[in-house]
């Protein structure tokens, strides 16, 4: 009991550290305000409004494609940096980063630009100018008038109560909580499917390999795992999409959130497989090694001497004691798979947390980023505690 208390305390401490780091980094490195101001573009003069509120804000008009120079005197604005964003693409891409606002040449066409804000950076996207949000209201909403520690505590209080706040960008709608509610189940389904598939592939594969240790089939399967592991998931995703979705047409190329659940699971098959295959290869290598080690234990010989057949030796005697490092890596790997899911969601256009965080990062929508990071960290901690529980279920020696 004491142990579990300690474990839970550690987890809470870890989550607090993660949230502080993320929150701090985003508040220090970036200025949340510019996003609250809403998407602004064109030649609209915002200067007066901003300066009236004590913000040194400058906007520039349409920037012709090719190159441009910043006209205003940078120093008076206390600029640190500003960012150009090219629009007109599905994913906004940054054309350039301007440090110190020297003359910068921008590439690409149709660039809209806004000058910087104190003390951070300014990002622009969206074709049409829109209203400048009420800065004071925004400040209160996001506790921006408070010093950082207070801001953090306020945010945390809201967060643990299930209020993740409004989004920074656009109109603040839908609230982050709603966005997460919509996106999380998909990502969760994807991850669970992937881990299930990886396990379903890895366990029989490693049993079979270990039973035929160092025979030609086993060597071939070892080489196979090696090849799979060397293929990064974004490359694997593209290949699987090409082969199974485009050439063979067995699976849809993209995800459609409007379809029925069954349909959605079918659509998630390829993305899940993309995540599962490398994971299965990792698990197979690990399990195979551990199984071979276990099969050399005396109690296996004892089981053979009892007359237990090969199948039951593997299934009943060798498998369970060989699962420990697999379970550990299964937990650790969950973190890596979340990263993988992020990439894969983009290949197959699955609107999950992964694509949400990429989108949010690009428009510097901090509440969304923060919420997702916290969920990911929480999931990670949860998985690791679950692993601990499973450990004690499997091994009576560590039962607490």
């Amino acid at each position: 009991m004491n142990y579990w208390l300690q474990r839970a305390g550690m987890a809470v401490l870890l989550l607090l550290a993660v949230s502080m780091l993320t929150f701090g980094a985003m508040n220090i490195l970036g200025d949340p305000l510019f996003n609250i101001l809403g998407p602004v573009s064109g030649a609209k003069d915002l200067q007066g409004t901003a300066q009236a509120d004590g913000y040194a804000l400058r906007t520039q008009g349409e920037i012709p494609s090719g190159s441009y120079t910043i006209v205003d005197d940078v120093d008076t604005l206390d600029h640190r940096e500003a960012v150009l964003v090219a629009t007109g693409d599905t994913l906004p891409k940054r054309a350039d980063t301007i440090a110190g606002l020297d003359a910068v040449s921008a590439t690409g066409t149709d660039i809209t630009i806004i000058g910087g804000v104190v003390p951070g950076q300014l990002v622009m996207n969206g074709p049409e100018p829109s209203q400048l949000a009420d800065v004071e209201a925004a400040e209160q909403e996001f506790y921006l008038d408070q010093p950082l520690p207070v801001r953090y505590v306020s945010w945390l209080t809201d967060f643990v109560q299930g209020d993740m706040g409004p989004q920074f960008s656009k109109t603040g709608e839908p609230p982050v909580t709603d966005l997460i509610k919509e996106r999380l189940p998909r990502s969760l389904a994807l991850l669970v499917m992937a881990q299930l598939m990886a396990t379903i592939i890895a366990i029989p594969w490693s049993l079979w390999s270990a039973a035929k240790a160092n025979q030609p089939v086993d060597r071939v399967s070892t080489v196979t795992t090696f090849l799979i592991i060397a293929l990064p998931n974004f490359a694997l995703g593209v290949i699987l999409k090409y082969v199974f979705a485009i050439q063979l047409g067995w699976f849809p190329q993209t995800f459609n959130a409007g379809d029925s659940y069954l349909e959605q699971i079918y659509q998630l098959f390829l993305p899940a497989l993309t995540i599962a295959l490398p994971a299965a290869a990792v698990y197979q290598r690990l399990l195979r090694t551990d199984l071979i080690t276990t099969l050399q234990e005396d109690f296996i010989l004892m089981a053979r001497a009892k007359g237990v057949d090969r199948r039951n030796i593997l299934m009943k005697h060798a498998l369970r004691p060989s699962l420990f490092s697999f379970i550990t890596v299964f937990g650790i790997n969950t973190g890596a798979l979340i990263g993988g899911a992020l990439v894969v969601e983009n290949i197959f256009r699955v609107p999950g947390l992964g694509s949400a965080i990429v989108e949010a990062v690009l428009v510097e929508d901090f509440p969304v980023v923060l919420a997702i990071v916290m969920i990911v960290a929480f999931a990670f901690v949860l998985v690791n505690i679950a692993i601990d529980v499973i450990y004690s279920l499997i091994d009576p020696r560590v039962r607490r």
Partner: protein
Amino acid sequence: MSGQQHSTQLQSDGRVPDGTLLEVTDLTTHFRTERGLVRAVDGVTFSLARGKALGVVGESGSGKTVLSRTIMGLLPSNAVNSGSVRFAGQEVLGLDAKQMRHLWGREMSMIFQNPMVSLNPLMKIGKQIQEPLHIHLGLDGRAARETAEQLLREVHIPEPTKRLDQYPHELSGGMRQRVMIAIAMACGPTLLFADEPTTALDVTVQAQILELIGEQRRERNMSVILVTHDLGVVAGHTDEIAVMYGGRLVEKAPTRELFANMKMPYTKSLMRSIPKLDDPSHTRLLTIPGRPPDLVNPPKGCRFAPRCAYARDKCLQEEPPLVTADTSPDHVYACWYPVGSPEFRERDAEIMATITTGVELGGTR
């Protein structure tokens, strides 16, 4: 399946008849390894009667463990063997695992050296005992549980009902070895291999375990092959003793005869490494100088010669055959200059002289 028929046949005859149970003829077991062919067992012949106990004694690397595992057919895949092993009149050498499985646990059982690692750590004791009952006798559920409990009672484990639901780590070493014996006894085997059954145990427990094995042997008219490095272990618990060295049988005699008239200097050295009762429990035993022979390139001549204080030139050149001793027709040994021969005495006197003058003995040759 031929294995199935085979074992039912044994069963229907009222199990294995009395008389010779096991006949091993010119058995060799070699291992293919990277270093070359390891001749772990090299031409061993002996037989064992029903209900008798044979002690197989030798240092580590003498091939005694491999011998017992060869007879049982529990060898890794890189093993090559030849010769013959007849169990209850039937050749069992060369049977595959599928066929052997019907003998394992039912006709032949094995107790391993280290009870700490020979029980499945993640399986309840009860389940481990019930496993052979299920496999060979088809016992399940309540019947299996009751039999398992009965078996635990027979090996004198207190509170057997409670033990059934415990895991190995909850039991002491001696208890675990008793559980191993219970598992081995589960289907009433006719031949029990006990491979160093007491080495990993406390001295006080050792005697109890040996006593238990003896008790089971008498009750079940079972044959026992007791493999050990310790002559002291086999002294009171076997009918016959076979001494192995470098994969070969070098001396074999009824227990009493062996202790009275041992012929091999090697046996004599083993004798010296028996712990005395009045020694403190962790005293280092006297061991034989030098290392066991390299089984890939065994020495020419007598394999023990390079380490033998009594070896002469002939020992290094020619391998001694197994000959019958003059003291008993059941006593065979392989030595050119056995204990008691004039050459032996002559050398012995020299050694004694050296010791009394205080010169360190070691690497006599």
